């Protein structure tokens, strides 16, 4: 373990970088220095700008202002290939693979070893992939197509890709989110080896103990701004959290006491082969139930199956005691279910449509007469909800694409709350929105629950889970592994269940 040389020239650095997307300022005057042989953590809440920062280093985004420095010299990356060619390897949070191509091709695309006449040496590609898999200690067949790989295995392929060229800088965006304890340990030993060879590492994780285990320095971002860069030695987890959040937690998670009523949603032994299995739970009126787990644990898929977007292979969903017809979102809506999806741009909204149209979509029968939409009713519905949720907008006829992420999320919430649901399922309700709006969304969920709504909240944001939920359900690799009451829910207990370290009934299938 060589001690990092923080006095030398950083191998890769950002200086005064700004980056905006439309009206959203993702990065403001952010600086960062990565030194050879040092693991640097990037801390910050969801939406603090970490992903944008990484993509700037990776050549995906170009800064609006400021510089990227390589060995102290300013460089401009015209694309990911430029960054890769100077030895920057990036492992993204969500693996992006070629589903139709083999694992070996996925790893070596564009960089295949060649023999005479520029031809690809297929044998060398395969053996190099096998060697990488050996180094990572996994048994994935190099010739298998990437389609159908589990998230963890996809992550392995991404890691193998980064290892396949001698990276000077290794950037990892929550690489451990979908990995089990032993897989994480293996990854860390590989990272340690790379670091010992002099590579610089930039590491993002929501698990603070991993940051302290792996890294020497940390840079904290909040709302797109640089907060601090400092050695980790001497810091405590609480210090780090304070820098990330920058405000009192009570203010961010205004949980109201509610009276829990009768069962609103009950899910019994729901199964979708290869995705999740034997999932049972209940949500009562007035309750906020969090569904926690790692990325890829199957939470979103459970929500989709409950709402009928995907058809479950087995099991039953009951709303207020009445069985729900499977595979029909219309039936689910009629029964009083509402689903605010994870990806609001793709699934939650029609980006090219106006605010009022979007809010009207879930109640077309209620705002139309004789087969025609009545503009006055549509506008009334939209105005009503925009006011209730304190939406910040220019005109209701503006299309939703111009709104900030937080306000877009409010439109999605308005769209579904306007259906007057009995059960509200929210999937990552505050991902990628600013802290102020986040607190507003929390206050809204809390008061809705107090009015007797049953809320099922899927969230990867641990403080949010702990701050908002009456009960925490935890999924791990497609199974429900734990149910933790609010009083017993801690960061440790939830993460232990989510990573499969505790919890009963974990079978290696």
């Amino acid at each position, binding site marked *: 373990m060589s001690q990092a040389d923080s006095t030398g020239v950083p191998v890769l650095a950002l200086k005064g970088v700004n980056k905006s997307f439309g009206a959203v300022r993702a990065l403001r005057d952010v600086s960062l220095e990565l030194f050879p042989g040092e693991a640097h953590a990037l801390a910050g809440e969801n939406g603090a700008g970490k992903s944008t920062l990484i993509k700037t280093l990776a050549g*995906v985004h170009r800064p609006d202002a400021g510089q990227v420095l390589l060995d102290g010299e300013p460089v401009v990356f015209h694309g990911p290939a430029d960054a890769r060619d100077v030895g920057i390897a990036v492992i993204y949070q969500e693996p992006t693979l070629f589903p139709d191509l083999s694992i070996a091709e996925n790893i070596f695309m564009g960089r295949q070893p060649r023999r005479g006449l520029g031809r690809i040496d297929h044998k060398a590609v395969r053996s190099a992939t096998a060697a990488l898999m050996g180094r990572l200690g996994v048994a994935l067949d190099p010739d298998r197509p990437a389609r159908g790989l589990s998230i963890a295995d996809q992550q392995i392929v991404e890691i193998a890709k980064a290892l396949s060229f001698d990276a000077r800088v290794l950037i990892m965006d929550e690489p451990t989110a979908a990995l089990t304890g032993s897989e994480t340990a293996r990854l860390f030993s590989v990272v340690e080896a790379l670091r010992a060879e002099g590579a610089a590492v930039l590491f993002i994780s929501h698990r603070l103990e991993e940051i302290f285990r792996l890294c020497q320095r940390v840079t904290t971002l909040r709302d797109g701004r640089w907060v601090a860069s400092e050695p980790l030695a001497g810091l405590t987890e609480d210090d780090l959290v304070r820098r990330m959040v920058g405000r009192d937690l009570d203010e961010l998670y205004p949980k109201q006491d509610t009276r829990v009523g009768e069962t609103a949603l009950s899910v019994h032994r729901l199964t979708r082969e290869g995705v999740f299995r034997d999932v049972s739970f209940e949500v009562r009126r007035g309750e906020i139930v969090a569904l926690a787990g790692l990325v890829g644990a199957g939470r979103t898929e459970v929500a989709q199956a409950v709402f009928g977007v995907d058809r479950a292979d087995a099991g039953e969903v009951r709303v207020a005691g009445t069985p729900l017809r499977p595979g029909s979102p219309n039936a689910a809506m009629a029964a009083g279910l509402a689903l605010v999806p994870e990806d609001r741009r793709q699934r939650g909204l029609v980006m090219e449509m106006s605010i009022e149209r979007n809010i009207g979509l879930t109640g077309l029968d209620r705002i139309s007469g004789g087969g025609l939409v009545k503009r006055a009713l549509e506008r009334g519905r939209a105005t009503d909800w925009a006011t209730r949720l304190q939406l910040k907008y220019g005109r209701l006829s503006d299309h939703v694409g111009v709104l900030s992420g937080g306000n877009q999320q409010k439109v999605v919430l308005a769209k579904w709350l306007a259906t007057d649901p009995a059960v509200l399922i929210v999937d990552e309700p505050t991902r990628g929105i600013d802290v102020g709006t986040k607190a507003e969304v929390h206050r809204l969920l809390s008061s809705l629950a107090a009015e007797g709504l049953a809320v099922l909240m899927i969230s990867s944001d641990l403080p949010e889970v702990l701050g908002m939920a009456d009960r925490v359900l935890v999924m791990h690799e497609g199974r429900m592994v734990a149910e933790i009451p609010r009083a017993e829910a801690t960061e440790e207990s939830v993460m232990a269940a989510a990573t499969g370290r505790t919890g009963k009934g974990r079978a290696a299938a």
Partner: protein
Amino acid sequence: MTATIEKPTAQAEAGRSARSLVDTVFRAREISIAGALVLLVLFTWIAEPRFLNDQGVKDLLLNAAILVLLAVGQSVVVVTRNIDLSVGSVVGLSAFACGKFVSGTDHGPLLVALLGIAVGMACGLVSGALVSFGKVPALVVTLGMLYIIQGIDYWWAEGEQINAADVPQSVLDLGSGSVLGIPYLPLISFAVLAVTAYFLRSYRSGRELYAIGSSPEAARLAGVPIRRRVLGAYVFSGAVAGFAGSLWLARFGTVVADNAHGWELTVVSAVVVGGVAIVGGVGTVWGAALGALLLTTIGSALSVLKVDSFWEDAISGALLLAAISVDRIVNVRMTRALRKRSAR
């Protein structure tokens, strides 16, 4: 602890069987087309023995040659999740340009072929630039190009036609001559097919075409020069179509303005029937060529059996729907199977 020890071996087995599953599925596609082809030929032969005499076989190969060539070019574009609907018009324009160029002269076949290729490449360059750099959907661009090129062709031809009598004998020989009893045209198509197949399999840029079609986002992150590659695919498809135009002149001698009118749809059908996924990333030019061969053989068989040619279109249509349905079902099944195997 036992779980962690057992897992890798179980996974390795799953991996192996997954590979053989995928292999089987793709080979099955090509084998089943080849099988259908053999059955069709056998059936027609029994009903009408003259179908497979010397001249019959020659006709089969000659009829297929140009469509196979076009299918090879089209596959390269379709694999990148794009489409080239302008190929029919390009063949027409190139054939007419070549005809104009040689009529009354004694230019040799090589020069004619080069001219055809140049005309096609120019068309492909325009389509490709609009699709890759202009980011206009391929369907719209190439549909527009189809009409524009056709318009240019009509305007230039003004009802005129090139007659075989005006075409030099050396060029006509290319269309009618043969070596060891096999006509030149199918040999040329086969050569282009083999070279393209080898390129797609064994060169980085060839694999990158598949990567782009399989996941454009992943291709971008992997640093694949997407725009350059897509442009290249269109230029290749154009060049092949232009070359096909010069072969058209060599084969028929007579050229009018709307040669190969409507062929673009036949070509796309052949490619899809041959197992090249219309959403990109999957399929081989071998399959596409077999698809083309199957479609033209159906046409020949029906005319030998004296069935109304109306049925040819209906059968091609049914085959196309069947092929796409099979693709879809296989895709869903395979995804599910692979998912179950890797589920832990």
